[in-house]
């Protein structure tokens, strides 16, 4: 097990280095450098070329690309993420402010889609071929076909503007910040964000459950005279659930992708919304840093999934 973990880590680290290098290269390719963002245009016209050059020198911009990359990456590793171009706010502060909102939304959506998806998928598998199964399949197809933000718009129109059940958007009203005050704000974005994933989990759970139900131990359990519901729940569902949990780890990118757009629709003050406005205003340092951290999140999630699979299934760690 330890050698397996070591091997996985050894493949992960070069990956992170290459990706961080590419991201820094991307930052380099964008028009303008730090000086052109720091010096306002009117002040710039007054400065002569020599002073600009001196400023570049003092910031270390005269050094070769590789050296600057090294300085940047060691800084990032020590927690110096740099500053946003908009207002010069430290990027670490933006992360601290915005991350809780994104995590709250993502975990809520993850919870909803896991529970709902595996229940619906199991029902679908148990009633295979029936009307319920077929209509669940079509509903699942609708779930992956309708754009999430369109769901969001319709939900805002119906449940917020017409019925007035939930607020239109935002996360916290000033002065009300307990969990129960925030809950109404969370309901719609979390539900909408979970739709696409619920459909995916449902599809996967259905085939996984069908697979489990055709195994020998199910027949053994039935032949012992065990009631049907106990066979399904105790033996089928439990076995079918393992690959579904693995799937959820792989779904993290989908979740991050969805939350970028959904946060915009519901004006949810998370990292995704910040990222979109950074791309819009060409706030490159912030864009790069969010990209780097989302890659890290995905890689770490896939590492955890791999380790979990290795723990559950010994064939994985011995196979390679």
């Amino acid at each position, binding site marked *: 097990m330890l050698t397996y973990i070591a091997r996985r880590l050894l493949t992960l680290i070069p990956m992170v280095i290459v990706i961080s290098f590419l991201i820094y290269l991307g930052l380099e390719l964008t028009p303008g450098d730090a000086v052109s963002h720091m010096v306002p245009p009117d002040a710039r016209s007054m400065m002569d070329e020599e002073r600009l050059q001196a400023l570049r020198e003092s910031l270390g911009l005269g050094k070769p690309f590789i050296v600057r990359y090294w300085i940047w990456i060691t800084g990032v590793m020590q927690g110096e993420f740099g500053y946003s171009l908009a207002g010069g706010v430290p990027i670490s502060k933006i992360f601290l402010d915005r991350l809780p909102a994104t995590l709250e939304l993502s975990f809520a959506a993850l919870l909803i889609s896991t529970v709902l998806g595996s229940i619906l998928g199991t029902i679908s598998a148990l009633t295979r071929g029936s009307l319920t199964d077929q209509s669940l399949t079509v509903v699942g197809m609708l779930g992956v076909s309708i754009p999430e933000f369109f769901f969001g718009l319709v939900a805002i129109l119906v449940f917020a503007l017409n019925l007035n059940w939930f607020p239109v958007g935002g996360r916290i009203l000033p002065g009300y910040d307990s969990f129960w005050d925030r809950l109404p704000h969370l309901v719609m974005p979390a539900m909408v964000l979970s739709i696409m994933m619920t459909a995916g989990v449902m599809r996967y759970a259905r085939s996984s459950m069908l697979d489990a139900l055709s195994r020998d131990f199910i027949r053994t359990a039935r032949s012992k005279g065990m009631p049907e519901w106990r066979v399904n729940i105790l033996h089928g569902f439990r076995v079918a659930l393992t690959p579904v949990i693995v799937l959820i780890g792989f779904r993290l990118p*989908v979740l991050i992708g969805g939350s970028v757009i959904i946060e915009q629709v519901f004006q949810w003050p998370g990292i995704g919304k910040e990222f979109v406005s950074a791309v819009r205003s060409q706030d490159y340092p912030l864009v790069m840093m969010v990209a780097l951290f989302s890659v890290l999140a995905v890689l770490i999630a896939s590492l955890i999934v791999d380790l979990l699979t290795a723990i559950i299934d010994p064939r994985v760690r011995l196979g390679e």
Partner: protein
Amino acid sequence: MTDANATRPRTRRDAQFDKIRDREAALAGTRQHTARFMSKFLNNRLAVVGFVIFAVICLMSLFAPLIAQHDPMSPNLRAIAKPPSAEHWFGTDKTGRDVFARVLYGGRVSILVGLGSALLSAIIGVIIGVYSGYVGGWLDWIAMRISEIFMSFPQIILVLLLVAILGQSLLNLIVIFTLTGWGGIYRMARARMLSIREEEYVQALRSFGLGPARIAYKHMLPNALGPIMVNITLSTAAFILQEAGLSFLGLGVPLSIPTWGNILNAAQDLRVLEQNWWIWLPVGATISLFVLSVNFIGDGLRDATDPSQQG
């Protein structure tokens, strides 16, 4: 062939007979195969419904100049945000442009982006995947590492990152989608090649002394086409959804060009959302219907081409 007949000098007649025989064999095979494929596809009711919807929307976009009576770009200040009427079927938007015409013309760009990016990324993915999957070695290793790098980004983050670097334009968007999308189809083509690499006919071809490129592209690729077709269909659907999402954020195709996503962009304004439903609801429904139909086609194709996926 030439080696086997080396004892008898080959005449021109021989070559002609060979050609005719080859043509017959090829034709017989495809006809039978196509018939089985078609009957399976047609048996799947959802796939047929999907194909009809897909065809209708594509044709309507293609013949947009004949169907729409209004120009999608020119504002009409005497008809601002008017609800649907006989004159304007889907009403008009906030600058008095005909929404129906915009949906039709927008379909052209959106479908172009979706289908174009899917085909381009399939071409790149298949060319690399088929060859490197068959040959293996350092080429395979490098291609695999590159695709791993692309795939460890959440798709939309990578797309937005590239939008920030390259800038916003229609062509850039197709390039970006292709760059971010080839990895999936590459991996699939490669995996497929790995599984048929050791089959007997491949070994036979190798022992005949055929070059690796010829074996990979001419003889093995046709056996991997089914899953590739399914993948192209499903990635078309995904790209259309992504274009819509990006344009909705205002970061996709520049707002001056009507696309389905750009039309929906207007609904970010709560007043439009509440009072002018005709500006955004029909477009959203069109996107959903189109993507749904493409997904149904993809499912039908999968059932028709892949015997292991039934049930």
